[in-house]
């Protein structure tokens, strides 16, 4: 599933938004991968992601912790998280490369940034999943400003009505940016909703 691929927004708004997935391949190298992913999660905890989650216990804004995620990893485990810092992602990827786990790692972010990071770490990326946009009955979509927030949950769990309600509350001064961003983040179970980016997008909405 391409849940981290279709984030919308300007290049500027996508800077410092990196989704990391670490995926042992089912029936190829997933067996006995749990202990290694627990080790990787320890390092991720040290770095401090903006958000992290799992299908088994939700994200940090619905009560999940990295310890809980470690305890509830499934037999076909995956790590999914989001960072708002190029340097943190670089440190994580460097560590993953040096420890030679052999699990697949994808970084979703601005192509130029991910390629630059790879070059700096002497990594040759293998493949790319490109987003070629939205097609069909596009007139049914909510306005672009709200869509930029909605598409940070790639599984479509963030509803257009939730974002509309939150934006209205922020505009009226009922909720501050932090409260609003965390509320929208809740339905994104796998924790790739970047609340720091959401705050900036909400701020832009107010300015408009």
């Amino acid at each position, binding site marked *: *599933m*391409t*849940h981290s*691929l*279709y*984030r919308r927004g300007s*290049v500027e708004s*996508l800077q410092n*938004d990196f989704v990391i997935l670490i*995926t042992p*391949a*089912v029936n*190829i*190298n997933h067996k006995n991968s749990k202990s290694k992913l627990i080790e990787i999660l320890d390092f991720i905890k040290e770095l401090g992601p903006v958000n992290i989650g799992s*299908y*088994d216990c939700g994200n940090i804004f619905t009560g999940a912790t990295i310890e809980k995620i470690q305890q509830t990893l*499934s037999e076909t485990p995956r790590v999914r998280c989001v960072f708002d810092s190029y340097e943190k992602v670089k440190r994580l*990827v460097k560590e993953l490369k040096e420890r030679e*786990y*052999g*699990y*697949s*790692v*994808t970084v*979703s972010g*601005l*192509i130029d940034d991910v*390629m630059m990071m*790879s070059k700096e770490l002497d*990594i*040759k*990326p*293998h*493949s*790319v*999943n*490109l*987003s*070629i*946009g*939205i*097609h*069909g*009955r596009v007139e*049914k*979509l*909510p306005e672009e400003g709200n*869509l930029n927030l909605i598409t940070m949950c790639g*599984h*479509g*769990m963030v*509803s*257009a*009505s*939730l974002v509309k*309600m939150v934006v209205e509350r922020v505009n009226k001064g009922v909720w501050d940016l932090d409260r609003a961003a965390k509320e929208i983040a*809740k*339905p994104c*179970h*796998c924790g790739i909703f970047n609340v720091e980016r959401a705050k900036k997008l909400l701020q832009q909405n107010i300015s408009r």
Partner: protein
Amino acid sequence: MLIEKDSCSGCGLCLWYCPGGAISLKDKKAEIDKELCLECYVCLKVTDCPKGAIKEDPMAYEFPRSVRTYFSDPMAYHKDTLVPGRGTEEVKTNDVTNRVKDGEVGVCIEMGRPCCGSSFTDVEKVTMALAGAGIKFEQENPLTYLMEDKEKGTIKEDVKKQRVVSAIVEFTISQSELKRIVSKIQEIEKELDTVFSLGMITTLEEDGSIPIKETLDELGLEYRPNAKINLGLGRRIS
């Protein structure tokens, strides 16, 4: 999903969270439209219903309604593929699986994404058109399991009535076929009552360049500046 009318206080909180727009207030009580409900479980798992009035539908894991659950709730695992979510591992493990090889393009048409959801009637319009163009669908994708006839791209009759948050039509073609298949997709999109997000996977050249860039330019298709990149750190365990 179900809402126990007797318990519901009519606060309307759940209305905001429902991605399918299936919940409304009637006589000061929340009510779920079963046709619009996608069985995504957001109302149950995320909305903090003050009265605990939201309940699981006992039919949510019974076929054919279970199709809604498996394709809408990412927390539901497909028992056949062991892969969570609505698709496959696609680019995530391509360095290990070699699912999309040099000279090929993996195509993902995610029906209903974003925001609109999709019926399988719309999904079938796409799969039938592509099957007619000679496409072989990705065997491991859960959508392929719902086909009546994979050669024709037809979907099982009782599944067609179901609606989901999204479903991914997934297949691999050679790069030389890309123009022909894209024009087929552009032809069929006019007949749809929903949106779809289009994704394409390729391996990267030695210098990191994207081999289908020129073809996409010729087709007038732009790719977004952000993408999902497999760093090539995976390896097979012998």
